[in-house]
């Protein structure tokens, strides 16, 4: 790959026009190969670690690959938090710690994260197109993705393929669980079981005195379209960040958000302890063994940043990076000071939250990321000021309010410190970091 990139680079310097034309031709062939009905089994690995690009390439594969083909795509992303298609970022993610801001700004917005900031630098927030829950990605993961005909598709078959790859690499504790995830059993070795059974291991420890919970090492999420099914998961191979991941996935506003849509199920996770390239190679081999015909080799093809030249990929990439996609695609939810009856929002999560239950009454309804209704009751605030504030919030997009106290002052002339406290409280729950335009 390197020599051709070098040549391409040279061409670009000599004559950008020619290089651009050639580049376009090369990358339009990616689409053609995908759509070629005679190429039934294809494998791609991405050189890019840009989550937006990798997800867009994956979506392009789903949309353009020939109806009867099966495509494997492997990629690794730079650190990011990825939420499911129908999830609520304010509920699933600790948004204030994604993009560390200077302490001064923290003070004005009331977002005081202080020393709890894990030193990972800026983390992208990504909403993917498939369903399921929230995951943290970093360089210690390999994302595996299989696009196949929907007819023969089952929710387990590709997780089973990955388990076969793991076992081949000596990870005998790996199995597929009832949630279609891949887990490593933690028990003592017990009775031997059928080695081909990808749903059971000798380490299941059903009888042991100390039941140790299996550790999740890969999830599963799906996107279904006409005739096609995409199944992907994030295999935790050697993440250096396991200790800080929970901080990113615990939202301080959770006890005060009552949401429709899909809530994540949190599981104890662990590293498999494998090298990226070893895992990629073995998964590719298992994929070829599963779908390849006879001795025919399935060549591994590389994709990368240059695929942004493909207009459809660029379009998907740009869409994923809009605030409208990340924030406004959130299913309807309400913000309230009353603790939800739902068992998920129990006393424990309220106590764990850094945000105090306020002594005013509030009920705010948000739909498509826009405030549709807001009722606040706080007797200490003059009714006129309260009404002006409520009116200014109606039809307001959450993504357009970066700093709630500043928003309050720009919209109303009020001086009431109780009202300022309400704005500050809302800012803690609905903090909406800007999507960087880089």
């Amino acid at each position, binding site marked *: 790959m390197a020599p051709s990139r070098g040549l391409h680079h040279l061409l670009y310097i000599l004559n950008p026009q020619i290089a651009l034309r050639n580049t376009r031709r090369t990358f339009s062939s990616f689409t053609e190969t995908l759509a070629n009905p005679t190429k039934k089994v294809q494998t791609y690995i991405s050189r890019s670690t840009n989550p937006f690009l990798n997800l867009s390439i994956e979506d392009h594969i789903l949309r353009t690959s020939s109806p009867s083909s099966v495509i494997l795509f492997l990629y690794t992303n730079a650190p990011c938090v990825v939420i499911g*298609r*129908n999830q609520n970022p304010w509920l699933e993610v600790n948004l204030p710690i994604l993009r560390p801001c200077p302490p001064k700004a923290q003070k004005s917005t009331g977002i005081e994260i202080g020393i709890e900031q894990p030193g990972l630098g800026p983390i992208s927030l990504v909403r993917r197109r498939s369903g399921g829950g929230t995951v943290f990605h970093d360089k210690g993961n390999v994302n595996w993705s299989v696009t196949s005909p929907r*007819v023969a598709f089952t929710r387990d078959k590709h997780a089973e393929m990955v388990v076969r790859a793991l076992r081949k690499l000596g990870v005998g504790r790996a199995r597929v669980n009832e949630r*279609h995830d891949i887990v490593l059993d933690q028990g003592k070795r017990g009775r031997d079981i059928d080695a081909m059974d990808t749903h059971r291991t000798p380490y299941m420890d059903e009888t042991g005195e100390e039941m140790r919970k299996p550790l999740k090492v890969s999830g599963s999420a799906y996107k279904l379209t006409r005739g096609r099914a995409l199944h992907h998961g994030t295999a935790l191979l050697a993440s250096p960040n396991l200790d800080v991941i929970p901080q990113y996935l615990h939202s301080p506003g959770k006890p005060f958000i009552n949401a429709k849509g*899909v809530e994540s199920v949190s599981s104890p996770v662990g590293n498999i302890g494998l090298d990226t390239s070893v895992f990629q190679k073995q998964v590719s081999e298992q994929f070829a063994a599963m779908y390849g015909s006879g001795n025919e080799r399935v060549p591994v093809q590389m994709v990368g940043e240059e695929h942004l030249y493909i207009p459809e990929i660029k379009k998907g990439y740009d869409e994923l990076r809009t605030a409208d996609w990340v924030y406004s695609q959130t*299913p309807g939810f309400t913000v309230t000071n009353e603790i939800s009856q739902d068992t998920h929002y129990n006393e424990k999560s309220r106590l764990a939250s850094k945000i105090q239950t306020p002594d005013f009454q509030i009920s705010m309804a948000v739909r498509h990321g826009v405030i549709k209704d807001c009722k606040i009751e706080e007797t200490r605030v003059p009714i006129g000021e309260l009404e002006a504030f409520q009116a200014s919030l109606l039809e307001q997009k959450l993504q357009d309010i970066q700093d709630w106290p500043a928003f309050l002052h720009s919209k109303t002339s009020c001086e009431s410190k109780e009202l300022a406290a309400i704005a500050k409280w809302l800012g803690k729950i609905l903090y909406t970091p800007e999507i960087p335009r880089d």
Partner: protein
Amino acid sequence: MAARLSVARTARQLTSSAVRRPPSFVPATCQRWQQAPLERRLFSVSAAVKEKKYTEDHEWIELSSDGKTCTLGISDYAAKALGDVVYIELPQIDMDISAGDTIGAVESVKSASDILTPIGGKVTEVNSQLEAKPGSINADPEGEGWIAKLEVAGEPEGKLMSKDEYTAFTEDA
């Protein structure tokens, strides 16, 4: 569901053949309990064009008797294949849509799928009950679990199948 369909089918046969057959062939009691479904489904009985039609994407549409509005939903087959639905995104009322557009989305067992419309028009009504109880679409996808009603503009696009053709299509698949 199956029971109601077979009632509808029996009713259809009756309207066409009852004239030729001696009245005694149909017991009076039987006619009476057929009254309700017949009234509701009169249009689909009288005009072949207006019976429920299915798409290859497993949606169904049913035109009103005057052909100006239609109801849209997902098929029994689709609901079973999806599994327990945990979230449904409905279209917005008054939204203008074209044939082939996405008018909603469902999520079930970690799977996101889009709901497409085979016909264009304007959304006049949505089944808001599905938002509160997404799982109810699994109980009766072709009845109570309808998704939206449209004021129809233009002709449906793409392949539309009758119930029998659709059944054959899902069995082939």
